[in-house]
């Protein structure tokens, strides 16, 4: 049962990669490092990370965090029902409010505007990043306004179009990630 689900997940991901709908995010590994988690990006997210759309410092911060993800580094996750309001802006990953399965955002702190990248875990330690948006306290971001329900819908559409089943998404969020602290 689990094996069949893993194989189906893998097949759906591979088909999406083949069609160009997803890009497997690889990082340059150094001595003693290896890929411990899998990360796939939609082309628009990949463009954001690999081109000069972002401020160089912020781009490097994003790349560093994605690298940490891939090599299995520690991650902090704020659960949707977290009682720790103080931590809600500090985690690497935030589970957004809404119906299951978990829909998450990765937050990248300033400089300039706060970048948020949205996505879903497709299996334990396997994350698809779908779309992104900017929020800023300091004026306009120059991008379209960020509406989380729209991002969630976009994610749902992708899952539906690519035969990626929502029931494959680990639920609750604690089942999504190893080497992580959840609050």
């Amino acid at each position, binding site marked *: 049962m689990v094996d069949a689900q893993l194989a189906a997940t*893998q097949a759906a991901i591979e088909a999406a990669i083949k069609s160009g709908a997803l890009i497997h995010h690889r990082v340059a590994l150094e*001595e003693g490092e*290896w890929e*411990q988690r899998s990360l796939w990006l939609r082309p628009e997210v990949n463009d954001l990370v690999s081109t000069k759309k972002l401020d*160089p410092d912020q781009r*490097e911060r994003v790349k560093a965090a994605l690298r940490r993800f891939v090599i299995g580094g520690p991650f902090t996750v704020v659960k949707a029902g977290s009682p720790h309001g103080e*931590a809600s802006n500090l985690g690497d990953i935030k589970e957004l409010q809404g119906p299951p399965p978990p829909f998450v955002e990765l937050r990248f702190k300033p400089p300039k505007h706060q970048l948020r990248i949205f996505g879903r875990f497709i299996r334990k330690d396997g994350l698809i990043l779908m779309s992104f948006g900017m929020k800023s306290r300091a004026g306009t971001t120059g991008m379209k306004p960020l509406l989380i329900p729209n991002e969630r819908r976009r994610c749902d559409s992708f899952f539906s179009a690519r035969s990626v089943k929502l029931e494959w998404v680990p639920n609750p969020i604690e089942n999504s990630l190893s080497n992580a602290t959840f*609050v």
Partner: protein
Amino acid sequence: MMVERTQLSASGTEGPAKEKAPVSEMSNDRKLEVVVQLTDDVLAKLTSAFFEVMSKEKWGKRDLALISGLNETAIGHILAGRRKNLTIETIALLARSMLKRPELVLHDTRPKGNRAGLPSSAAVALERTPPQAGNLIRPLTTIHSSSAATALTESQEHLRKNSALEVLERSAGEQGGLIQKMGR
């Protein structure tokens, strides 16, 4: 007494240095990359420690400020990644206030010929699965006990095993064979 300098050759064997290794300046992009990577690592660990102390001791930023003497707002800025020029003193005080002992670990990036960092293969993944003494990769237990800054946890060992299996699966898939799963 003359001390002979040694270096690791490409094959990973130690031997005397015959000539000075070439020196090349880091590009500005590379400088930014390495600085941001370390910053990310430090902040990730500080944030993780904060989450832990918040869950276990029920301490908040105010408590940490009382313990460390650091400004509460400054702690918030540090953890939120807004503070530039974080000093060693600040890291030491903040980490200690969160009941963690910070330690700088310098990982040797010289090639050792152990194939770490090369493209994944099933053989390499299998090789890496059991961390044993004598392996060029440091045993997980040693790292866990000796390094607060870069400690790998048991869950990472789990991750590593999973990763090995995934590589095996990929490899089997690429060869057109059946996906072989080991005890899953």
